[in-house]
Structure formats: structure tokens, C-alpha cells
């Protein structure tokens, strides 16, 4: 009996160690949450009486009522559930793993994958009453292989954000992120494709045709860049904090951070680098096989409506695809943030191209090696 007991102590000790070892390696694989598909109600019911439910896979913050206020007001009896994705890769992984969300929110760069993997349904734009308010240039961004798979919705710039009190001479190039003059006061986004884009701008390379040799140069460049970089930011609040308290003077930043800091009275400026700014567009897609296709279209139409669009502009300081909303901006800070009064900025802007699977694998591996380098 005692022997048996000892043996079991030893075995359970081994089990514990095994479990602990595996804990060390675990935590990364996320289990997708399953939302049961709901039946589609007959469509002829008046909007205010319509019932049903929609599940939206979105980014944290976008689940706020402000960003779908028009839908809620028109269809008060429809339940909208939100799932939260942490990044484009996260949202793509979830959808690929069979997430049952009806609607999802990727950004430019990632759109081709959803079409190639058969995860997205074409949008019947004839059923969107607000579709004619979207400029053609935006519509085109949501088209893959000649079909409208995505609804363009929010957009913004990426550029260099800097503290004007620390750098009175200003910043005129993306190379500022690597300038030894700003050692310990630089922060860049924790993202491989983002880093490749910056290097491509600096060298004047076509970012859609980066060769393995160029990628090797880019890797070396960013390994060196760690000498001047304080930390890689993962979310905007982290960057805003560090710029407000003076730790970071120069950063790769979205314009939301710029507008937030302006609002806080921090002396910052958003550079117009000679290589041009970058711009990204957020889009919505409907999952292929969603049983709520009709409801999803209604949601899309409401997403394009004015009150929702104004909230995106006023609360997040991002642009909206409804041109009427953008034309209605009067606030000076916002006008500055969108560079509305200086059309030359938009002409010089580089829009984020869609990545191929090979580029995504190579560029993210490059970035991992930068972080792992001695």
C-alpha cells in the first residue's frame, strides 16, 4: 500500500511537472468563440419591429454604441453581439478557424487572404442606400478580383508624429525613426509589414516587389534601429502616454494618436515626410455562409450613415468613407488631422497594398528575427 502510494506521489509529481512545462508553452492558441447561427426573420417586417441577431468581430473600442448608433436606432429589436480581435492577424486567424461572426473588420493589407480562402461573401451594393456617398477611390479599395467583397468604412494616415518642443527643426523623412540623434526617444509600431513599408519608403523601393536581398538589408536596418528605439508600441494609448510624458519624441503613428495628443495640449506635429505619408482603410466583410446576410447589409448601410460617421470622426479622429461626413468637418483640429486644407498631402500619400501569403510569412519572420537578434 505504501509502495503504491509513493509511486502515485511520484507519478503525480511528474504529471505536475509536465503540466507546468506545457503551461510555459501554452497560452498562445486561442479557442474561437462560437455563436449559434440564428434564423432570418421575414424581411417585410417594419424596421422598428424587426428581430434577430448579428455577431460582429471587431477591434476593441469599435463595439461602442457610438459606432453603430444608426443601426440601433433603426432596428432597436435586433441584438448585436461583439467579439473582439486584437490585430489583423488575430481577426484573420479567428475567421479561418471557423469563427461564426456574421461581419468582420479587417484593414488594407489583409483583404486578399479572405477572398483566396473563401471566407468572405460579395456585397450586393444595390441594396445599400448610402452607397452613392462613398467615393469611387474608396469603393475600389474594397474590390478584389473585380468584385465588391468589402465595405470601406474608416481610414487614416500613418506618418511620423513628433514633439515640436524637443525637435524644433521638425522631421521631413521616415528616416527620422532611425536617426541616432533621437536615441532612446523613438518608438515604432510592433509590426513586420509596417517596418518593411517604412524601409521601402526610405529607399524608394516598390513595397509590392521586395526582393530577398532587399529584405535582408531591411532586417539589418531594423536590428540597428533598436539602438535608438525605446520600445515597440502595440496599442495607441501606450504611445500617447509615452509621448505625453516626454519619453518618446519621434514615433511611427496613426493620426488618432496625433489628434489625441493635440487634444491634451501636448506640443506635437504630424510630419509630411518627403517620401509621402502612408494611408490605410478599414473595411467590413460578411462571412461566407452567414445566415444573416440581409441583416448584415442593413448593418452596413447604417454603418455608412451620417451619425455613425460623425462619431468616427469626432471620437476616434479617423476619417469615414461617407464623403458628406468628411465635407461637414468644421473643427480646426480635425481639419488639421485630416489635412483637409492641403490636398497635396493626399496626392503624395501611399496607400497600403494587399499582402500576399508569401510576403506576410517572410516579413513577419524578418520582424521576429529582428526582435530575437543579439
Amino acid at each position, binding site marked *: 500500500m505504501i509502495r503504491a502510494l509513493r509511486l502515485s506521489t*511520484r507519478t503525480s509529481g511528474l504529471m505536475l511537472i509536465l503540466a507546468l512545462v506545457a503551461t510555459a508553452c501554452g497560452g498562445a492558441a486561442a479557442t474561437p468563440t462560437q455563436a449559434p447561427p440564428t434564423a432570418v426573420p421575414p424581411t417585410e417586417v417594419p424596421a422598428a419591429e424587426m428581430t434577430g441577431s448579428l455577431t460582429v468581430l471587431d477591434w476593441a473600442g469599435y463595439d461602442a454604441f457610438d459606432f453603430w448608433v444608426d443601426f440601433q436606432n433603426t432596428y432597436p429589436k435586433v441584438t448585436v453581439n461583439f467579439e473582439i480581435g486584437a490585430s489583423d492577424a488575430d481577426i484573420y486567424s479567428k475567421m479561418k478557424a471557423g469563427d461564426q461572426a456574421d461581419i468582420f473588420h479587417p484593414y488594407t493589407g489583409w483583404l486578399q487572404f479572405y477572398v483566396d480562402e473563401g471566407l468572405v461573401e460579395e456585397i450586393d451594393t444595390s441594396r445599400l442606400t448610402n452607397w452613392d456617398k462613398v467615393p469611387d477611390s474608396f469603393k475600389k479599395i474594397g474590390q478584389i478580383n473585380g468584385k465588391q467583397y468589402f465595405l470601406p468604412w474608416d481610414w487614416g494616415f500613418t506618418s511620423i508624429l513628433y514633439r515640436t518642443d524637443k525637435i524644433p527643426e521638425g522631421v521631413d523623412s521616415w528616416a527620422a525613426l532611425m536617426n541616432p540623434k533621437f536615441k532612446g526617444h523613438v518608438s515604432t509600431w510592433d509590426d513586420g509589414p509596417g517596418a518593411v513599408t517604412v524601409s521601402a519608403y526610405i529607399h524608394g523601393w516598390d513595397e509590392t516587389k521586395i526582393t530577398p536581398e532587399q529584405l535582408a538589408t531591411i532586417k539589418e536596418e531594423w536590428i540597428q534601429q533598436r539602438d535608438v528605439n525605446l520600445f515597440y508600441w502595440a496599442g495607441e494609448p501606450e504611445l500617447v502616454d509615452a509621448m505625453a510624458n516626454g519619453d518618446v519624441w519621434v514615433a511611427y503613428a496613426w493620426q488618432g494618436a496625433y489628434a489625441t495628443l493635440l487634444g491634451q495640449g501636448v506640443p506635437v506635429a504630424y510630419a509630411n515626410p518627403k517620401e509621402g505619408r502612408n494611408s490605410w482603410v478599414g473595411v467590413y466583410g460578411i462571412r461566407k455562409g452567414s445566415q444573416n446576410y440581409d441583416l448584415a447589409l442593413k448593418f452596413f448601410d447604417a454603418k455608412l450613415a451620417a451619425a455613425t460617421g460623425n462619431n468616427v470622426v469626432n471620437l476616434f479622429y479617423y476619417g469615414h468613407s461617407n464623403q458628406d461626413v468628411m465635407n461637414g468637418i468644421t473643427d480646426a483640429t480635425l481639419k488639421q488631422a485630416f489635412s483637409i486644407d492641403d490636398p497635396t498631402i493626399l496626392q503624395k500619400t501611399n496607400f497600403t497594398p494587399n499582402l500576399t501569403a508569401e510576403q506576410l510569412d517572410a516579413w*513577419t519572420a524578418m520582424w521576429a*528575427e529582428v526582435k530575437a537578434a543579439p
Partner: protein
Amino acid sequence: MLDRRATFWVLYLPPLLWLGAFFVVPLILMAAFSFRADMRGEVLQWWTPTLKQYAGLFAAGSYWRLLGISAFMALIVALISTALAYPIAYFLAFRAGRRAGFYLVLLLVPFWTSYLLRVMAWKFMLGSNGVINSFLMYTGLIHEPLTALLYNRNAVVLTLIYVWIPFVALPIFAALQRIDLALFEAAADLGATPFRRFWRVTFPLSLPGVFAAFFMVFIPTVGEYVTPLLVGGSRGSMYGNIVQDFFTKAANWPLGSALSMIMLIATLALVALAVRIVDLRRLIE
């Protein structure tokens, strides 16, 4: 007899099923994914096993180096937090008396706030406008804030030690509490000094708790990724950060799985080696 069998299954089946479904099956899936070429196609389809991911990892030396650094950091964190927690456990077991329960609760108070918040608090401690820098500037000892406090590997080690100390004190406390007090009297009767008594009686008897504590810190710390993300800066990444990136930033599960498998095997090997060196079996008996 049947009753005993029934009791056995009633007691063991639920945890076995739980572990099987949420631990063993994901582990097998991860192992399977590490032999997949890429993420194209259905997630659960048959694929031809390939060593492509492992070949790529063997070619890139930086990942191995980082695994070594992470294991070394885990070793330092485990050693220091165990050493610092020992006196706390000793105090609780032998000196706190009737107040031991109260002090134990005090020790556990930090767990009432989330891990993330406690790590974030260290940013306020170590940052350039943080508590330490503000104090030093106020006293006039420095004129420019020290930047070396935050955003490097030392900050990661410091924060991890802090986070682990209360955890680590518990198994040591449990081991110390089990010691029969009559042994101390016997030692004293035989003329042992307090130091000798501790060194020859208390400490050896507490070793199972000490080793349990050490491994409890070492093993999860090898794969740590939250703390380096928050206080590690550009050069503070650990192996766990790279694994996390391949899952959440690169949508490259096969490569992330291969990295995880390598860490699993390396950690198992290290623990097996350590167990052999300290002869854990003898200690438990």
C-alpha cells in the same frame, strides 16, 4: 469493491476528461500543426507532414540564442525569488504564531489585482517620470532621469521576481509547516546551535518545498511574454514573445507551433536534468 471502483471513476473522470479535452488534445493539435507547411486550406484538413518549419528554425540561429537567454533569465528569476521568499515562509511557519493566518492573507493581497495591473504599476515605478526617478531628482542625487531603469531585460527580471515572490513562499511555507517540532528539541538537546539546527535539520527538510517553488517559477518563466512586452523595450523580448507573435501577428500557426514544441522539449530536458542532479526522488522519500 465495486463501490470503490465507482468512487474512483466519479472522482477521476471529470478532471481526466477536462485535462484530455483542454490540455492533451490541444497539445497534440499543436504538435500536428508544427508539421504543416502553411496555413492555406481548411484548418482541420489532412496535410502531408513536412519538416519545413523545423528546418527554417534550425537555420535561424537567433531563435536558439533567445531560447538560451530566456532559460537563463528564468533561472535567475527562480533562484532569486526562491531565496527571497524563503525567509518570508520561515517567518510565517515559525515566528508569526497565531497571526500566521493574517500575514498569509497579507501576502496574498497582491493577487486581488490583476497580473497586468501589477506589471503596469512597475512602469510607474521605473519610468522616467516614475517614483524612483522623481525621488532621486527631488533629492538632487541626479539631474536627468535615469533611463536605464525601464525598457530592458533587467526591468523584466526585476518585475518577474516581484510577481513571483508571494507564489513561491507558499510551497516553502507548506514544507516548513510539516516539520515535526520535536526534531528541533532533539537537536537542541544534542547541543546544536540555532544556525546548525537550521542548516542540518530545518533546511534539508524544507528542500522538497524549495524545489517545488523553484520549478513553479522556472518553468512558466521560460515562456513568459506579458512582462517583456510591457517593460522589456526593443531589446527585452523573450522566446515567448516570438511564439506569441507568430500566432497573433503573423497568422503563422505552423511556425508558432514548431517554436512551441522546441520550447516544450527544451524545458522538459532542462527539468529532467535538474531532477537528476538534485535527485528529487530521494528528497520526496
